[in-house]
């Protein structure tokens, strides 16, 4: 124990020693193995990491070396990160589902010497590309299964390394001193970790984060959310993602709480329920699939239960969020809600494993307001945050009670945010990255001259100080009047309606905004069945006057919402049409990840775009389509173009052109 003053706690290994001294018996990690939760206290973890680090030193690992960490959330992989950092080596977590080729790029670019991996699958991947990775010296693995007959000249079990280190700990005081010195001489300015971005836009880049910055950022949010060593998290997010490294690894070391590793990725939900986590993070789609599962199961429940469920969801919808936010609520409603808690919300949260959750976050993409409200109304303190790897996660965060579905919150403590003239969000944060590894020119592109980092996202501040992210900055355009036009923002708003599957908004350089709409065949088909509307094809259903009416209602609703937003009021949708065919990746209209290819669609359906803007009420179009078996055919249609209802902006803005 060398560090006493708080000022010295600027690296994770030092925090580990502090936790060993301050809370030696508190659980640091759990892992469900063979159906039983195994537990390690902070003292256990500190000892394992010390032995592991001594073992790695004996293998020749030195300050500044890069160590790849590949696998799912396992205690031994977290220890690998800690052990490497203790020596001053730099851990580089790599996405375990990366294919061998992607993995080879990262391992090569990061100049990896040692790799700590989970199992045979990862060993195979590395060995498969070993000829491209001359720098890799040795691979350490956690699970020996299937590896018995492998050539072990460059392969060793992590257990053996730890055992070896345990021997050194007993017999070689000089080596132990070298390790202690290495930990003590670690500085806040040192690179603590390199996190590779997922690479959705081009080659992935290695984001270098400093130890001091990481600790400072994590300390801020631990204080913000009042996390203590009594908290529990389940570690199921990819190790290589900033979310895991921050929310679990960094915050656990700062606050001293417990990281729980699930038995396997598939059991994470069940395991979380067993542990009763208190702090949770999940992307919107996880919340969505949980809700869908509940709703489907409720449909199979008995009449009484179903009635009760829907009645109390109604009560929750009306009062739940107000109660959660501590707003005044009549005593009768409070009592009814309390009864609902006993009858519905409590059991529901229990099934979802949310009974003990104190704080839950979501981020990553836009979350539907209905979905967001649902969880909050049954008493889950769900909040949003906005962040990125370069910031070491948090840029903005919502505080308890200051939550809204459409914004991501005000700046996190000690983070400065600025919106530049193009609407791009810039920030300065304590955890801000040092730079991209070996790519100074890309680092320079991302930084402004006065030291702010560009997020690449466009957004603006609402009146209550919450940041609203509207789109990727490069996708945001302007109408002819110069007013802001954020196509994805409009599209997402429309896509929250179940009847609408896909939307393509136009308006760049035009006088007003228009859009193509694709109906959702399942949802609209279901409606048609219930209302005795007969149709023979997708095309016929899409062109049905009543369907047009429904969609017009949705568009009007979106316009109403937009009219209440000063920045967006001028971007209301003036005209729209319902496309006669589904946009399809086979026709090149969508990417393989189901994103719309806006300019391609504009070219392909040029006559329709013209009709949207020249005021005509219908247009003919014939398009070539590719069938599933690869044959081509032509679909022709006459598509109706409709004017949508627009509202005056609730507050006039100078940007609104006459």
């Amino acid at each position, binding site marked *: 124990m060398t560090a006493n003053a708080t000022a010295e706690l600027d690296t994770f290994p030092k925090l580990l020693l502090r936790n060993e001294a301050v809370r030696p018996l508190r659980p640091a990690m759990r892992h469900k*193995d*063979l*159906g*039983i939760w195994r537990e390690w206290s902070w003292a256990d973890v500190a000892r394992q990491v010390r032995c592991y680090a001594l073992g790695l030193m004996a293998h020749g690992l030195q300050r500044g070396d890069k160590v790849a960490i590949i696998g799912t959330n396992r205690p031994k992989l977290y220890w690998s990160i800690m052990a490497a950092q203790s020596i001053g080596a730099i851990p580089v977590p790599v996405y375990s589902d990366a294919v061998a080729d992607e993995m080879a790029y990262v391992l090569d670019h990061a100049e990896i010497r040692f790799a700590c991996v989970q199992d045979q699958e990862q060993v195979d991947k590395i060995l498969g590309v070993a000829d491209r990775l001359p720098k890799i010296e040795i691979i350490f693995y956690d699970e020996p*299964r*299937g590896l*018995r*007959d492998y050539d072990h000249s460059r392969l060793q079990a992590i257990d053996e390394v730890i055992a070896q280190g345990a021997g050194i700990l007993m017999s070689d005081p000089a080596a132990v001193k070298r390790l202690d010195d290495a930990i003590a001489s670690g500085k806040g300015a040192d690179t603590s970790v390199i996190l590779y971005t997922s690479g959705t836009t081009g080659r992935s880049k290695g984001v270098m984060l400093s130890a001091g910055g990481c600790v400072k950022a994590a300390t801020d949010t631990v204080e913000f959310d009042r996390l203590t060593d009594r908290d529990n998290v389940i570690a199921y997010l990819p190790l290589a993602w900033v979310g895991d490294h921050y929310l679990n690894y960094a915050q656990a070391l700062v606050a001293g709480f417990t990281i729980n590793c699930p*038995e*396997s990725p*598939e*059991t994470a939900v*069940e395991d979380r329920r067993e542990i009763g986590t208190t702090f949770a993070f999940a992307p919107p789609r996880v919340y969505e699939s949980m809700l869908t599962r509940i709703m489907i199961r409720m449909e199979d429940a008995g009449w009484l239960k179903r009635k009760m469920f829907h009645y109390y969801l109604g009560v929750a919808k009306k009062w739940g969020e107000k109660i959660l936010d501590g707003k005044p609520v009549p005593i009768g409603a409070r009592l009814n809600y309390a009864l609902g808690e006993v009858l519905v919300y409590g059991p529901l949260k229990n099934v979802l494993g949310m009974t003990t959750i104190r704080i839950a976050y979501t981020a990553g993409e836009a979350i539907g307001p209905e979905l967001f409200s649902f969880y909050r109304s049954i008493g889950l303190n769900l909040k949003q945050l906005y962040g990125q790897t370069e910031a070491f996660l948090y840029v903005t965060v919502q505080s308890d009670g200051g939550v809204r579905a459409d914004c991501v919150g005000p700046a996190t403590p000690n983070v400065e945010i600025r919106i530049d003239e193009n609407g791009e969000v810039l920030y300065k944060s304590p955890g801000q990255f040092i730079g991209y590894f070996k790519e100074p020119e890309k680092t320079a592109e991302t930084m402004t001259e006065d030291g702010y980092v560009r997020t690449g996202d466009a957004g603006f501040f609402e009146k209550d100080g919450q940041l609203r992210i509207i789109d990727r900055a490069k996708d945001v355009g302007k109408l002819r009047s110069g007013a802001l036009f954020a196509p994805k923002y409009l599209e997402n708003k429309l896509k929250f309606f179940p009847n609408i599957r896909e939307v393509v908004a136009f308006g760049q350089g035009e006088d007003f905004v228009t859009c193509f709409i694709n109906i959702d065949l399942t949802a609209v088909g279901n409606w048609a069945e219930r209302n005795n509307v007969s149709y023979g094809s997708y095309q016929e259903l899409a062109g049905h006057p009543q369907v047009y009416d429904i969609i017009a209602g949705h568009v009007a609703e979106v316009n109403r919402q937009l009219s209440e937003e000063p920045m967006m009021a001028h971007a209301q949708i003036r005209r729209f049409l319902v496309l006669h065919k589904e946009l399809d990746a086979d026709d090149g209209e969508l990417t393989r990840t189901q994103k719309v290819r806006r300019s391609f669609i504009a070219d392909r359906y040029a006559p329709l775009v013209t009709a949207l803007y020249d005021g005509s009420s219908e247009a003919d179009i014939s398009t070539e389509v590719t069938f599933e078996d690869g044959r081509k055919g032509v679909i022709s249609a006459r598509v109706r173009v409709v004017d949508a209802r627009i509202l005056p902006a609730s507050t006039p803005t100078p940007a609104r052109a006459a």
Partner: protein
Amino acid sequence: MNAMNHSEFRQDIAPGETLLAVDNVTLRFGGVKAITDVSFDIRKGEVRAIIGPNGAGKTSMLNVINGFYHPQEGRITYRGQTRTKMRPHVAASQGIARTFQNVALFKGMTTLDNIMVGRTLKMRTPFFWHIFRQGPAMREEIEHRKFVEEIIEFLEIEHIRKVPVGKLPYGLQKRVELGRALAMQPELLLLDEPMAGMNLEEKEDMCRFILDTKEQYGTTIALIEHDMGVVMDLSDRVVVLEYGQKIADGTPDEVKKNQKVIDAYLGVAH
């Protein structure tokens, strides 16, 4: 998996030596000859495939090996002992386990319980103690549970541990059935079409489990399979049956080139 206690009688046969020999076996059902004068052997530690067109007598052959059918002629020698009369449960206690072409699990029981069933023969504590689940019975159950949990981890079915198997998709049921067979710590594992009805991914998983079983538990495996790609990849030696007769026997490569086999599968011009 160091908790594995290999059955005490297992050491005496070295890998590569004959574990089970089938000599001139003929099996008749009334006037129908299901198997006619077939001989082959299964060596310790190998994966032995039995292939052939539909109705060739493959499943009958497995049933003869595990004592369900009694051949009218010929001999079965297992571990050096020639069998006279054989019952399936005796075969099981001697270390022969099998899975079935149609999954045969207890649909209403969980994955865990189904695999625990495989341990029944290994239970030693008197039934009396198990009624009360006390003392020695509890200790024994914990030991068996540990072994079963190792199998669950081995087969990567942790997420369905407590799910009734009737609710599981077919591919997973097959995996549970393999788990139950493994729970018996068999010396010889008979798999009847372990990959029937599976998609490519499930097949690849199953292949890996079969190879890992061989490596990790040292189990000798005899399997019937229709997917030729799988058979050629997995097995060390292949025996080919047609109309109850053996038409070829050898390594996958030898069998592939055998004219009789090609004719049996593709038909002959007459």
